[in-house]
């Protein structure tokens, strides 16, 4: 029973990280219809910043968390300004290819600066387990789940209730009409990148907490799986990203628990194939009418 619960918690932990990263994919897709393939690499940036701050500078974990999230936010916004914004009116394929280019740039840039070997990120806290009603639970796992719940609720409130959130929805539905409302479309898109990248920054910290390492290509598989999660849930949908992330996390956990961990990546991509065949719009996705 204990074993079962702790596996469940692991699935939830991994799924939460996927969910946080998937939210960034889904938000950016929702607003400019771009699959931002560089998004996974933002995680890598965050993990390296955590390593730098704690292992190199010897500063506190709190500083590491703040700087990691800030760095991810900044890098996300910069990528949009430098690489994507000049292509706003270009064909979608051009900007997609640019995103792949940015991804390679970040991965190789990190390798150039930090070397190809993985760096060990120090523990954020000495607290490794917490006791709850006689159960011993992994603290990083519990923290991950709680942080993800808070972040998702905060994001939902932001998008549904705040003025900027409503502007994001307006831009995502009709950019031209949003302009006519006096909405500054460019700054709204920047804001979307900032929020998505900040969530990735939080994901980066939680990931580094669980897996304690940073490497140049760590964002590749993580990002791809979070992308699968976003598609699974219905790309463009915020609840979809969360549900998709949890499904992918649990699927990996189940496969691993069955002793088939070498198959876990394959199972995730099998899920993607099944979704694309059976329900291409994903769980929460709606069929989009082509804009005229």
């Amino acid at each position, binding site marked *: 029973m204990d074993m079962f619960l702790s596996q469940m918690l692991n699935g939830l932990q991994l799924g939460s990280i996927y969910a946080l990263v998937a939210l960034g994919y889904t938000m950016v897709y929702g607003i400019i219809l771009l699959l931002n393939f560089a998004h996974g690499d933002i995680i890598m940036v965050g993990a390296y910043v955590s390593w730098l701050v704690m292992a190199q500078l010897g500063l506190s974990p709190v500083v590491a968390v703040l700087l990691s999230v800030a760095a991810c936010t900044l890098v996300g916004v910069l990528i949009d300004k430098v690489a994507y914004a000049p292509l706003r009116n270009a064909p979608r394929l051009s900007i997609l290819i640019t995103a792949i280019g940015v991804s390679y740039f970040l991965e190789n840039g990190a390798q150039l600066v930090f070397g190809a070997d993985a760096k060990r990120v120090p523990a954020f806290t000495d607290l490794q387990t917490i006791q709850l009603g006689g159960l011993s639970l992994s603290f990083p796992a519990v923290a991950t789940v709680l942080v993800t719940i808070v972040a998702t609720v905060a994001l939902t409130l932001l998008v549904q209730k705040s*003025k900027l959130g*409503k*502007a994001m*929805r*307006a831009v995502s*539905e*009709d950019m*031209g*009409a*949003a*302009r*006519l*409302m*006096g*909405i*500054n*479309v460019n700054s709204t898109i920047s804001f979307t990148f900032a929020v998505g990248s900040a969530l990735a920054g939080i994901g980066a910290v939680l990931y580094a907490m669980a897996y304690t390492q940073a490497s140049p290509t760590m964002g590749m598989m993580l990002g791809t799986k979070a992308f699968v999660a976003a598609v699974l849930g219905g790309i463009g949908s915020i609840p979809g990203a969360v549900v998709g992330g949890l499904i992918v996390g649990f699927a990996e956990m189940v496969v691993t628990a069955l002793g088939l961990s070498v198959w876990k990546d394959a199972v995730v991509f099998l899920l993607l194939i099944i979704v694309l065949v059976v329900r291409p719009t994903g769980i929460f996705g709606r069929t989009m009418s082509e804009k*005229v």
Partner: protein
Amino acid sequence: MASLLSVRDLHVSYGAIKAVRGVSFDINEGEIVTLIGANGAGKSTTLNTVAGLIRPDSGSVEFGGDSLVGVPAHKVLKRGLALCPEGRRVFTQMSVAENLEMGGYTRTDAENRETLEMIFEHFPRLKERRGQVAGTLSGGEQQMLAMGRALMSRPRLLMLDEPSMGLAPILVQEIFDIVKQLNEAGTTILLVEQNANMALSVADRAYVLEIGTIKKTGTGAELLVDDDVRKAYLGG
């Protein structure tokens, strides 16, 4: 008297296609002015250019004495010029209230509350449906919402692009009645229409656009009885 909006020798093209070729017109404070013409005459392009959605190749657009050329659309709105676009383009996944709120994006909540009262007076149906998702409204209701949304910015000049498009005749009449009401309440209106009969009967003055140039101008009443206009736009 200086006009509120003054467009001089406007040229606009989409790539190699010249959509507007030297259009000039004026609108004075308090008027309803209409641009009529066939599909592709350049009416919508003219409005979209004035609103800042498209950059002209050349020519000048002055609003209240200031040039609007090169001013992006979101800043044009702040100067007091709102466009209610062709095809309505309400935010279909947002509620009626949220759509109106977006219309008042550049103004304070207190101002918006006041404006909302005024809009609900002109469009009581929007008040009844304020919680409803805009995509589920009928075409006529969506047109009312699009107009109400444009009015939320309290424009000095309201530009309406084909407000009667796709509406049943009884609704067209209703929309035009509201246009007149709005004008009487102090809003200057630039109306683009294919329904020339309706447009000319409410307009103080009108311009006839053909293939990107102004072919004729006069008061609404004059053009309603003009032989060329009757033949081309009013069905004989």
